[in-house]
């Protein structure tokens, strides 16, 4: 079995684990640093908005053009009277972008370009965009983003609780800020495809977070009825317990996106495939990070502020101190518990076989395994 399998087992039993919640301050710090960098990049460098957001035209010639980039640039400038940006794509075709021209004029420019480049005008693909189209897309995207955030916060508040909804929202904003920041810093071109990718992050970022929250909710169901673990302890275990799953989820999500990026970037050079997958790739990575390092610790922080949880923490700490003083290890006793809230049939758990360990072994799934001392 793969190594991850046994690591998963150890994580599951709590034998190994990283104290995500305990070290949260470090991660908060890192995140704040990244976010500040992203915002700085955004304000200082700004985004490299594609032709779709400025209005203008983008022409794509057939493959294997003989004309060089500078030649094509000159042709395009002569034909349009505006500055042109020419890119040579992976397959030898040229992408000619001319900002600021009117959609009406584009036809004549296209004809002229076709003549200069010695290709049939029918073989030139053209993207003509009015100046307000990009704004419209962007506005719609923001609108969608806002509506989605409101709805998802309401939903998560109902399905889980408002603290988790808030933490998920923070993680979401965190992901989007980072993604936009990377775009600003690296200078990737922002196109409608980028916007699509960015909007998809919404769903994905939360997808990961929701899986961790789900486990957290399940494990903290009866938290006030015990005194061994604080909320943070359990939150930490939830993250560790779902870590393998989170890694798998992210890898499996990134694999197809990576394939898209490879094909879109490697073969087509540019275009929708590339734009979507690039922002997705960045956003997915940020999303996996934030659901583990930001969202859940944040929930723990919020929860620990509750009077109930404060009291619990006090009890737990007192008990631990007492145990330490006695040099004794708190052995949980589970034999006579009466608050078994599971409605699964008992026989499912009644695994036959000799009992090698003391009856006091506390063994809920994903729960304190008793080895934790």
């Amino acid at each position, binding site marked *: *079995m*793969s190594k991850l399998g046994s690591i*998963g*087992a*150890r994580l599951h*039993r709590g034998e190994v684990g990283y104290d995500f919640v305990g070290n949260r301050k470090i991660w908060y710090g890192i995140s704040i640093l990244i976010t500040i960098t992203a915002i700085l990049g955004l304000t200082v460098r700004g985004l490299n908005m594609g032709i779709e957001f400025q209005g203008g035209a983008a022409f794509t010639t*057939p493959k294997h053009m003989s004309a060089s980039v500078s030649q094509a640039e000159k042709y395009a400038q002569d034909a349009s009277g505006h500055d042109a940006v020419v890119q040579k794509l992976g397959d030898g075709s040229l992408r000619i972008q001319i900002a600021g021209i009117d*959609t009406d004029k584009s*036809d004549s420019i296209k004809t002229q370009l076709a003549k200069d480049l010695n290709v049939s005008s029918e*073989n030139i*693909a*053209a*993207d*003509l965009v*009015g100046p307000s*189209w990009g704004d419209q*897309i962007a506005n*719609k995207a923001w609108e*969608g983003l806002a*509506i989605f955030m409101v709805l998802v916060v309401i939903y998560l508040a109902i399905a889980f609780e408002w603290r988790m909804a808030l933490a998920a929202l923070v993680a979401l904003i965190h992901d989007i800020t980072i993604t936009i920041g990377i775009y600003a810093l690296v200078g990737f071109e922002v196109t*409608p495809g980028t916007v*699509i990718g960015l909007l998809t992050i919404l*769903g*994905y970022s939360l997808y990961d977070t*929701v899986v961790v929250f*789900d486990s957290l909710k399940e494990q*903290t169901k009866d938290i006030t009825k*015990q005194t061994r673990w604080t909320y943070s302890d*359990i939150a930490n275990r939830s993250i560790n317990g779902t870590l393998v*799953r989170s890694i798998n*989820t992210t890898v*499996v*999500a990134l694999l*197809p996106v990576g*394939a*898209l990026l*490879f094909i879109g970037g490697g*073969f*087509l050079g540019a*275009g*929708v*495939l590339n734009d979507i997958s690039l922002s997705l790739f960045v956003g997915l990575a940020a999303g996996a990070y934030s659901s583990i390092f930001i969202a859940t610790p944040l929930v723990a922080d919020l929860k620990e502020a509750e009077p109930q949880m404060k009291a619990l923490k006090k009890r737990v700490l007192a008990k631990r101190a007492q145990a330490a003083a006695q040099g004794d290890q*708190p052995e949980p*006793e589970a*034999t006579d518990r009466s*608050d078994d*809230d*599971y409605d*699964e049939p*008992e*026989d*499912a758990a*009644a*695994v036959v*076989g000799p009992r*090698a360990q003391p009856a006091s072994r506390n*063994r*809920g*799934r994903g729960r*304190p395994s008793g080895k934790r001392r």
Partner: protein
Amino acid sequence: MAAPKRGRSASAQSKPGRSLALILIAIVALTGGMFASGHTTPRLGIDLAGGTSITLRAVPEKGQESAVNKTNMDTAVDIMNRRVNGLGVSEAEVQTQGTRNIIVNIPKGTNSEEARQQVGTTAKLYFRPVLATEASSGAATASPSPSTSSSASSSSSSSAKPKATGSSSSSATPSATATSQGRAASDALKAAATSSASPSATASSSASPSATSSSAASAAAAKLEAQYTALDCSKKSVQNTAGKDSTAKDATVACGKVSGVWYKYLLGPAAVDGTDVKKASAVFNTTSAAGWQVTMDFTGGGSKKFATITGELAKNTSPQNEFGIVLDGQVVSSPFVQGAITGGNAEISGSFTQEEAQSLANMLSYGALPLTFHEDSVTTVTAALGGEQLHAGLIAGAIGLALVVIYLLIFYRGLSVIAIPSLLVSAILTYVIMALLGPGIGFALNLPAVCGAIVAIGITADSFIVFFERIRDEIREGRSLRPSVERAWPRARRTILVSDFVSFLAAAVLFIVTVGKVQGFAFTLGLTTVLDVVVVFLFTKPLMTILARRKFFADGHKWSGIDPKALGAKPPLRRTRRPSAPVDPKEA
């Protein structure tokens, strides 16, 4: 092994075969439907098939922001459809997107420049007097035409054509209103009795153009007459183009469809302009049992012009007592007139259905509508580039799928026997539904949609991961496989539902709010998310239940992916009570 004989575990894993059968039947049925419908590939969008896509945005005039509403947008789409398809391509499609955008997709091989000009301009609507008309298809000419002369007298005028009357509230002559109500009833009756009632002037009309002395006696008359005689409106290519180049001042020929039959018309110069119509609406006339009617309100100048023309027309005999309502060179209706209609409002009655009346009213209104359209984006994709993009998308999808499969094989080994078929079922369902949605709701697969489908591979695979990891957790607790599956399922199910719901919510919001390419992407994402839930519930889980009975899995074979030893499971324990939360009542 534990014996899950009683209680819920028995019922929970009952009938896995039934779910499997259900989804297999669904797949077979959908696939059969796909082949039966003849659409075995999804319809491709412009960016994959090549062609031109134009996005127009409605721009209301100042103070008329409410003019951008659904009715007006639908009318505009209708009109643009006529125009674009009038260019000789039937494949062009026009649809609204969002609240204020119209997308016009013109496949490759069409003159896109001409198409762009066509959709950009505002509609031209005229009222022209009819000089002559004739049905263009053989079937209709054969039927008799009893009502040629006495239009005012009795019910013998069996015209299926609508007629225009002054509305009852107006100051039209009393006699006119009286007859109109009686007639409307008879018309409606007739229309009900003879569905394909042939309209008035057939036999006589071929001779009539020469006699049209009233208004169109000009030098060009002869030429126009020849044009009219040659005109064959049963030809599809002619229908939209016949009256295209006409100007308002000159007489023209045009085609028009009445009661499902195409007619050709010889029309006089425009008498009333579309902008003279202040408002038109479809109303259901309950008082006179005339059924659906279209009422028109004219502007001040319009009502004068309309009074003049109707006064003149009323003196004529059929068909010259008719006026043609000509929209973009095509006659959309040709009501006949009985008397001068003065009061500034008129109604057109006939055997309209609600839809017909609504559509006519929209067209009448549209000429005066404060909606213009602004070209927001024009994308022309050459067929070569489109093919390349499709190719790249498919390759990327194949690579992505292969990578996921390899990952699943390495990490889940035997369990991939469940995961890979589940992915395949998802893929088949997605493909078939996309192919069916092409003709169904006009779904066209574009590049972002392909992207969405590829991204969805991850979402689908993730559901299995959630489920499998839960099962492994249970096995690590020392349970044997079958109880593990049944215990893992309710929890995995909830996680899958919650996370898929979030994903679906994102897709739905994007689909509703956004425009353009984003929508195609959101649609695929939403579709695949729904399919993911279906597949996990009806395929993955039942298959897991069935396979859990196999020795290979139940004994935790080394390659099964659920080998307890490799997972680091604890040695099997026997317990009578199962602890739940990290609870310790003694110390609480």
